[in-house]
């Protein structure tokens, strides 16, 4: 065995090391600073994670595995690391604006560890690493969901998330243990090689493993029918936590879902004449259709803005799965639908991160100022603070998929990938669902601008961090929508790195 090169291996996990240092710094600041000055911990987290998000960009990924095959250093992990680090950074800023979390040092510490897990998850190439990273994302999130102990809904949301989450983890672990049993390997590449060499004679046993692992991922991305936790957790958890759950853990889970299925069950793998890829793609297509439909239809009847955004997030997971389904496409005439699909998923997660942080950021500021989370109470927001109203409108337009907001171009890439993979009918279902979604997003915009309320003359003041947060996310959503090409090319480059 050749010598272990500590230097290069450490270089690859620089973002994770940075996050660990940040976590320790937060811990010290929390105990050294007086209560009144602890808000600076939030700013440290914001700037720290923002700075760390630059690191992955400076490393040149080579597509090799490191740490004994635990992680793969490729462009895909790079893109998703940047996404989750930006998500963590902005979440810290959202949290700093709220009165209940603003000065809680532990909050930022636990969120930093969760972000670290998400970073590792997007590069994990070994089932043990995947499991540990997934738990490192999830367990801190259970704590964060229950962070407002005075609020019964928060406790309930933490408990529900924990019970559902640990069950899903156990199911996924069972799937992993089957794969390990078949192949005797823990590395994704090793499992793939063993399967190709005919380690499993019966397709049925592999199908069981695929279903079990898919259930675990489907829970994390809140796809139907594993979405039952989503509305309650989103509603009960403190709003910054909801924002973080809806973007960081979802984005990292999509990254690992792509990596896992592409590596272990590629197109050329057939067992006993059965192509395994067909099976899991069909699973993804089914989950995509029901997620889009159930999410959008149930969102129509919501009265709480956080519950509405929860169902919207279920629907968005459905759209994103369209891009995953495009992996079945076969390359022809210079167009590779599989790469298009992966790139569309990466781009969608990038734009969805900013969009959702924007929407939840407005909700966090609004509910902190007024103590209300119902859609009806958003009435007259345009007269109480027109910048917040404008920001929320752009966020909702992006979620609905209307130009110039980034959501339009994101959906375009997803549907385009589905069409080039000969899934026109699926793209049509997606478009129909987007029209249903348009209705409830527009209703909220109507409430903000048209409806009158008794509090019209009570302005909501924006603090500087709140203004910065809304500014960053709004501009990001617009930029991603107006000049998407460089970002999509970046995503496309990351997609090809997945297949090499």
């Amino acid at each position, binding site marked *: *065995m050749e010598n272990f090169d500590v230097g290069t291996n450490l270089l690859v996990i620089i973002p994770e090391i940075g996050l660990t240092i940040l*976590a320790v710094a937060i811990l010290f600041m929390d105990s050294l600073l007086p209560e009144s000055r602890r808000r600076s911990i939030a700013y440290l987290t914001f700037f720290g994670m923002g700075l760390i998000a630059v690191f992955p960009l400076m490393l040149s990924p080579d597509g090799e595995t490191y740490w004994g095959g635990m992680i793969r250093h490729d462009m895909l992990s790079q893109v998703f690391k940047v996404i989750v680090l930006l998500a963590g950074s902005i979440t810290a800023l959202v949290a700093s604006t709220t009165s209940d979390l603003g000065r809680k040092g532990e909050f930022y510490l636990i969120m930093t560890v969760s972000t*670290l897990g998400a970073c590792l998850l997007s590069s994990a190439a070994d089932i043990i690493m995947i499991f540990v990273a997934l738990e*490192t994302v999830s367990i*801190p999130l259970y*704590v*964060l969901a229950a962070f407002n102990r005075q609020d019964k809904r928060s406790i309930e949301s933490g408990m529900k998330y924990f019970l559902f989450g640990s069950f899903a983890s156990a199911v996924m672990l069972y799937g992993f243990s089957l794969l390990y049993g078949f192949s005797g390997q823990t590395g994704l590449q090793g499992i793939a090689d063993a399967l190709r060499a005919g380690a499993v004679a019966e397709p049925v046993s592999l199908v069981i493993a695929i279903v079990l692992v898919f259930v675990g991922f489907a829970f994390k991305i809140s796809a139907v029918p594993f979405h039952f936790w989503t509305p309650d957790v989103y509603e009960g958890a403190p709003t910054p936590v909801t924002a973080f759950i809806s973007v960081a853990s979802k984005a990292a889970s999509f990254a690992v879902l792509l990596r896992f299925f592409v590596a272990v069950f590629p197109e050329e793998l057939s067992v006993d004449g059965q192509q395994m890829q067909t099976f899991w793609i069909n699973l993804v297509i089914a989950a995509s259709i029901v997620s889009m439909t159930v999410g959008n239809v149930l969102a129509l009847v919501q009265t709480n803005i956080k519950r509405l955004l929860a169902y919207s997030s279920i629907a968005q997971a459905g759209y994103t799965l369209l891009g995953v389904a495009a992996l079945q496409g076969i390359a022809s005439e210079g167009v590779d639908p599989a790469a298009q699909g992966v790139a569309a998923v990466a781009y969608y997660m990038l734009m969805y991160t900013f969009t959702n942080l924007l929407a939840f950021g407005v909700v966090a500021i609004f509910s902190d100022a007024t103590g209300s989370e119902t859609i009806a109470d958003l009435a007259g927001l345009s007269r109480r603070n027109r910048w917040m109203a404008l920001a929320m409108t752009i966020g909702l337009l992006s979620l609905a998929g209307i130009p110039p907001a980034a959501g339009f171009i994101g959906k375009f890439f997803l549907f385009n990938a589905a069409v080039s993979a000969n899934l026109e009918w699926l793209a049509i279902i997606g478009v129909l669902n987007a029209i249903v979604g348009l209705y409830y997003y527009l209703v909220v915009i109507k409430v903000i601008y048209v409806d009158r309320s008794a509090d019209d003359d009570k302005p909501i003041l924006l603090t500087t961090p709140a203004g910065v947060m809304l500014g960053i996310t709004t501009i990001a959503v617009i930029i991603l929508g107006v000049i998407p090409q460089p970002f999509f090319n970046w995503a496309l480059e990351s997609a090809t790195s997945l297949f090499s």
Partner: protein
Amino acid sequence: MTFGDFTPEAFAFGFFTILTLGGAFGVVGSRNLVRSAVWLMVSLFGIAGFFVLLSAPFLAAVQVLVYIGAIGILITFAIMLTRSMTNLKERFNKQWWLAALAALTAFLLLMVTVIVPTWGEMGAEEIPPTVASTAQLGEAFFSGWGYVLPLEVASLLLTAAMIGAIVIAREDD
């Protein structure tokens, strides 16, 4: 082993039996949760002793590390964090006989299915050579080619989880 002659092994067996059973009685008999937790560790230590007697030092070490170390500490932490429960003395329900019945059923089930069929003198069996040595295990855990990264991440996760548990469970001041 026959009990006719008094060997050191028989003495050790008796000692660990007293620890295991005595500890177990302590767990159910004590009305204080902390005491019960300590009795549980005594009982688990006795079981680790049995593993040594069965020439399974690795299992004995795992028993000490995982059960006494990790699970014992976990239970103690859980009790400490819910401080209002530490000094409880009264019983909350009268269903001890149900628990006793369940325990007796489990005992009889184990007797019938496991103990009785294998009762009697047994020839010593060779341990298959594929069993990894402790050194190999350490290498798998801590070498850069092994699982050192997940191991380190797990330790970070445990720290965060511990802080989280304290945040959620601590009493308001």
